[in-house]
C-alpha cells in the first residue's frame, strides 16, 4: 500500500497557507504547514517531507536560506523544492540555491497542482 506523498509547506501568509494546504490535502497529499523557516526546521522530523514547498520572503530566514540549510543536511540534500514568491525568480539568483520549480504569485490553483504533481519525490 502506497502512502500519501508528504509535503512540508512553509508560508508566512496564513490565509494563503490554509488554502494551499486544503487544496493539497484534497489532492491526496499529507501536508504539514510551518509559518516560517525556523518552525519548518523544527518540524522536519515530524513532517518527514517528500517535497518542500516554500515561500521566499518570510520573517527571519527566507526560503532560499531555508533550502540552503536543508541541502547541508544529508537526509534532505536531494529534497525536491518548489519555491513560490511574489518577487520575480531573478531575485533568487544571488542565492545560487538549487530548486526544482518556481511559481510566481499569484498563480492559478490548477497550475500549482500540476507543478506539484510533476515534481519528483524524495
Amino acid at each position, binding site marked *: 500500500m502506497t502512502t500519501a506523498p508528504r509535503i512540508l509547506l512553509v508560508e508566512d*501568509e*496564513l490565509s494563503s497557507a490554509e488554502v494551499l494546504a486544503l487544496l493539497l490535502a484534497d489532492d491526496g497529499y499529507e501536508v504539514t504547514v510551518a509559518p516560517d523557516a525556523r518552525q519548518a526546521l523544527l518540524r522536519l522530523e515530524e513532517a518527514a517531507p517528500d517535497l518542500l514547498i516554500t515561500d521566499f*520572503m518570510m*520573517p527571519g530566514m527566507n526560503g532560499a536560506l531555508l533550502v540552503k540549510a536543508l541541502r547541508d543536511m544529508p537526509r534532505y540534500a536531494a529534497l525536491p523544492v518548489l519555491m513560490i514568491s*511574489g*518577487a520575480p525568480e531573478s531575485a533568487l539568483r544571488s542565492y545560487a540555491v538549487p530548486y526544482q520549480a518556481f511559481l510566481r*504569485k499569484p498563480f492559478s490553483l490548477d497550475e500549482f497542482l500540476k507543478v506539484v504533481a510533476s515534481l519528483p519525490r524524495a
Partner: protein
Amino acid sequence: MSTGADKTSPIDRIPTGVPGLDEILGGGLLRSGVYIFQGSPGAGKTILANHIVHRHAAGGGKVVYVTLLAESHARLFQHMESFSFFHPDVVPEKVYYVSAFHALRTDGLKGVIELLRTEMRSHQAGIVVLDGLVMAASAAESDEELKLFISDIQTHSTLSGCTTLLLTSENADRPVSAEQTMVDGIVLLRERAFGVRRERNLEVVKFRGSSTLRGNHSFRIGPQGIVVYPRLESARRPGPTDCVHRTGVSTGVAGMDAMFDINGYAKGSVTALSGPSGCGKTTLALHFAAQARPGDSALFVGFYEPPALLRQVAETLGLRWPDDPAALEFMWQSFGENMLDELAAGILERVAHGRHARVVIDGAGGLMATPGFSDRGGAFLAALTSELRAQGTTTLITVEQMDTSRALVLDSATMSALADNVLDLHMMKSPRMRRFATIRKSRVSRCDLRERELTLTPTGVALVEVPNIGD
C-alpha cells in the same frame, strides 16, 4: 568654556521622493522618526508608502515592508506594478515584504515587535513600514498596551536609525487616539467632496522637530504614483521684489499700446481684461499671445476653446500666429475637472521650463470653477499672480463679468486689487453691436483713460478713438 558638545546636530532628513511631499514636510521625514499615515480604505496610504519605499530603494536605501493585513503580497505587487515607481527587481534585496500576521496571532504585540526588531537589523533597513496598525490596535488589550507597543517601536527606530511608517485605515477625522499621542508625526489622507467631484488631499497635523506647510494639500494618484500639490498660499517662496518694470510689452493691438505711456503693458505686470461674454476678451488675449516669438515666448492657458480652434480664430482675425512651438505653448484644461494647486503648479512649471515672457490665462472662470476656489479665491489668485510676477512674466487674465442676477465669486474689486492693470470691455447695440475698451486702472504707468472702440482691420483688432457726443 564651550566644548562644542553643547550644540545638537540637526536631525538627518529622509526624503520621501514623492513630488511635492518633501516641500510640505520641510525637506522630508526625520531619520528614526515614527510616523502615522492615516486614512480610510482607498485613501492612498499603501500607494504612498510603496512610493516612498521604492524611491528610498532607488536611492540605495533598504526597506522592510511588514503587513498585518489580509492582502497578500502577491496582490499588493499586482496593484503596485501598474505604477512607474515600482521596480520589482529591487525586491527583495532592497525592499523586503514580510507578513507579521502569524507573529501577531501567536505572540501578540510582543511578537510583532520582535519581528520588526529582527527584520530591521537583518536587512539594515533605513525605513520600515508597518501596514495595518489598526490590527495591532485591535489586538491591544488596553490603550496602555498600545502606547507601550508604539514606545517600543520608537525605541528600536531610534537605536537602529530606522524611520518607521505606520499605516492605519482609521478614518482621518476620528478623535485623537492613544497611538497618535506617541508618534513623531501624523499625516492624514482624505477625500473631500465638492458636489459630484472628489478631491484627494493630505494634511500634516503633527510633525515634531520641524515646521511644515500647514493645511490641506491636494494630491493625485496616477501612473507615476502620487503627486502632491502644496497649497499655493502656504508654500514657501521668496516674495516678489523688483518685478514690475516700467518697460512696455506690446499688447499686440494697434492703438492699445499708445494708451500706456510706456507703450504697452508694464513688463512683469498682471493685467485683467474684464467684460461680459462676447465683448472681445479672448480676441485681445489672442493678440497678446500672437506677439510671441522664440526668446519672447508665451504660455496660453485655456479652459474653453481648444488650441486648434484658437489658432483658427486668430488666423480669421488676420493675426500672424506663431508656428514655432518654442514660441507659443498651450496648456488646455477641461473646464471644472481640475485641482487648483495642480493647475498653478502646471502653469508655473511651464513658465519656468519654457522661460515664457508672456502668460495668458483665458480665463479666471476656469479657475473659479475648480473645486475649492470658493474657499480660497482671492488668496489663491494673489499667490499665483505673485509667483508669476516673481518669474518676470507679463500676464493677461480674462475675467468674465456675470450678469447682476448671479452672485459674483470673484468680484471686480478683488480683481482690481490683484491686477496691476484693469481693462474694462463693454458692448453696446446702436444699431449694430459695438465693442469698447477703457483702462480702469494702471498701477505702474500713466495711461489714457478715454474710451476706445474695437474695430476689425485686415491684420487684427485695432482700438480707435470714440468721437465725443459734442462732435
